[in-house]
């Protein structure tokens, strides 16, 4: 993808160092997925594609790309996305949202999308502080007889390797007494601000008293030098920087979660600033991943926004998932594949997930059984696999728990075929439920809508909403 000429809204500062895009001289390695990893089974080709993307994301080689995962319900689209998060690790920001989340009264759709975009872009910065850290051996404070003159004193601090004496002025004495520092405490003094923090009590002093409050924390006496430099690398998302710098909210909004709308000027300033930092070598950009589930719930306005936003120099990798085939684009009367406009569909990489083979269903059910601590006889597993193949995988997974309860009731240690059969008759799967409705719909209220139901509503929808809990 070439950098678009007209996409310089609010991002003028980014032009000198554009983020690398996909396909720019990257050697594409073929990643071979092992048959079952991270609890994932089958879907080899989809997982291979996902693995390739993860590798590119990790190397920071792609940004501003969009991927669509298309497939029938229960074929592991979300599972693959979750697997990608796991594989990416801590360093790369990952935001997940269901498309319906953006329809809110408090925020416009584009604002919600912008926030999601900015949540998925990390800025890596390094914080550096000089601290004096050690165990207090002795505090000695001299007070004048009248009590009016300035106090002075001495503070002895040690680590396992060294010990030294500091002369104290009035300010430090006040800070020490405010923190209630005693001999035996392990303290941390920030060199720039002079702020003292108590880290805990030294373990060697733990026997000084028999009774200590529950809040007393015992720590080891620090090792090494007294004056150390602490370097911490943080990854903050652009959205977090937006929030702590937006005038109305203040950073507390980060914890409250309710951030409201953020002014575009603030964002612009932040973009400029981060551009400066990047050039000064103070920050680096980590393009992350934004996962939009049920993407067919987005309407035409959102799609046109996404279309433009993906061309921004600061775009994350966007992964979308949809279980729809040809359907109406929300907000229009036109039909399109996956409910996504054709022009937008054109810029996506499409990974499709296929239905699981019987072998895979069996393995998945086995894993679920282990996960839920349910023992199952081989015959029962065989039957359940059949059910899973004929109805849906989710339905079969639901049966595990219910069948195990039935087995428990008859005081059996493992689930047998009879238990499966029993719950199979007790709980309808989606096909049988539709069948039942067709037969008995005259007995239901408002049955005149029932006739259209079986043709217009995709069968899968009723099943997926019921079971995706």
């Amino acid at each position, binding site marked *: 993808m070439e950098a678009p000429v007209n996409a310089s809204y609010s991002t003028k500062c980014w032009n000198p160092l554009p983020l690398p895009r996909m396909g720019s001289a990257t050697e594409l390695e073929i990643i071979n997925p092992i048959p079952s990893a991270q609890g994932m089974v089958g879907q080899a080709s989809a997982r291979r594609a996902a693995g390739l993307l993860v590798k590119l994301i*990790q*190397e920071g080689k792609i940004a501003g790309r969009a991927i669509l995962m298309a497939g029938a319900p229960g074929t592991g689209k979300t599972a693959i996305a979750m697997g990608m998060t796991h594989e990416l*690790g*801590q*360093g790369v920001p990952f935001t997940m949202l269901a498309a319906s989340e953006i329809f809110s009264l408090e925020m416009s759709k584009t604002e919600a999308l912008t926030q999601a975009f900015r949540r998925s872009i990390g800025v*890596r*910065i*390094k*914080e*550096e502080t000089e601290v004096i850290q050690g165990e207090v051996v002795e505090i000695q404070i001299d007070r004048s007889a009248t009590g009016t003159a300035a106090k002075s004193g001495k503070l002895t601090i040690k680590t396992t*390797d*060294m010990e*030294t*004496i500091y*002369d104290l002025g009035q300010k430090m004495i006040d800070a020490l007494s405010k923190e209630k520092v005693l001999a035996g405490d392990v303290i941390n003094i920030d060199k720039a601000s002079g702020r003292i923090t108590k880290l805990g009590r030294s373990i060697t002093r733990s026997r000084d008293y028999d009774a200590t409050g529950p809040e007393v924390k015992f720590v080891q006496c620090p090792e*090494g*030098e*007294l*004056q150390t*430099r602490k*370097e911490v*690398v943080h990854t*903050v998302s652009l959205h977090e*920087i937006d929030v*702590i*710098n*937006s*005038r109305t909210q203040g*950073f507390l909004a980060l914890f409250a979660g309710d951030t409201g709308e953020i002014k575009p*000027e*603030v964002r612009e*300033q*932040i973009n400029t*600033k981060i551009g400066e*930092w990047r050039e*000064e*070598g*103070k*920050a*680096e950009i980590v393009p992350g991943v934004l996962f939009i589930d049920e993407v067919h719930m987005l309407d035409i306005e959102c799609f046109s926004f996404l279309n433009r936003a993906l061309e921004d120099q600061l775009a994350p990798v966007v992964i979308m998932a949809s279980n729809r085939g040809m359907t109406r684009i929300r907000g229009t009367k036109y039909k399109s594949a996956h409910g996504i406009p054709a022009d937008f569909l054109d810029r996506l990489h499409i990974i499709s997930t296929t239905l699981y083979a019987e072998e895979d269903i069996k393995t998945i059910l086995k894993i679920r059984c282990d996960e839920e601590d349910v023992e199952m006889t081989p015959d029962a597993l065989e039957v359940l696999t059949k059910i899973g193949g004929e109805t849906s995988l989710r339905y079969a997974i639901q049966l595990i728990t219910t069948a195990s309860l039935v087995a428990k009731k008859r005081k059996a240690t493992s689930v047998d075929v009879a238990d499966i059969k029993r719950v199979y008759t007790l709980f309808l799967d989606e096909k049988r439920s539709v069948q039942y409705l067709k037969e008995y719909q005259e007995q239901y209220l408002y049955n005149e809508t029932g006739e259209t139901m079986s043709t217009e509503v995709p069968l899968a929808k009723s099943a997926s909403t019921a079971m995706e809990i």
Partner: protein
Amino acid sequence: MDFIDEQAQKEVLGENILTDRQLIIDYDRRRNGNREALRALKNTTDTKSWVSLGDMFIRLPNTSATTMVKEVDNERLVQEVEEVRERILRNTQKLEEMEGSETQHHKEGTFLKSFDLKPITAAELYNIDSSRD
């Protein structure tokens, strides 16, 4: 690269890091000693003090003793510590690169690269919006 060669190289790097860490401790001990000395020189009423130089004690005027400790010794120490820290960082990065695949969450030894960034202060991060008060 041969496995044994690689192990040997890792061992050398690890050993260097440990030596450097000990070196920092020694430097810091000396720096704190100097600081205590400067304090003592400032508080004393005598005009001359005994200064220990290696094996010898020499009686020097306070002013020249102060410049010796402060300018000659302390400034060099600060510089030296800075260099050693830099060396430790480089060696740790090299070591991480060699063991890269083994460190979880930070694939391919890329994590410590971020420590090459120049430091940023909290004030810088929190006051981007210049239109604020």
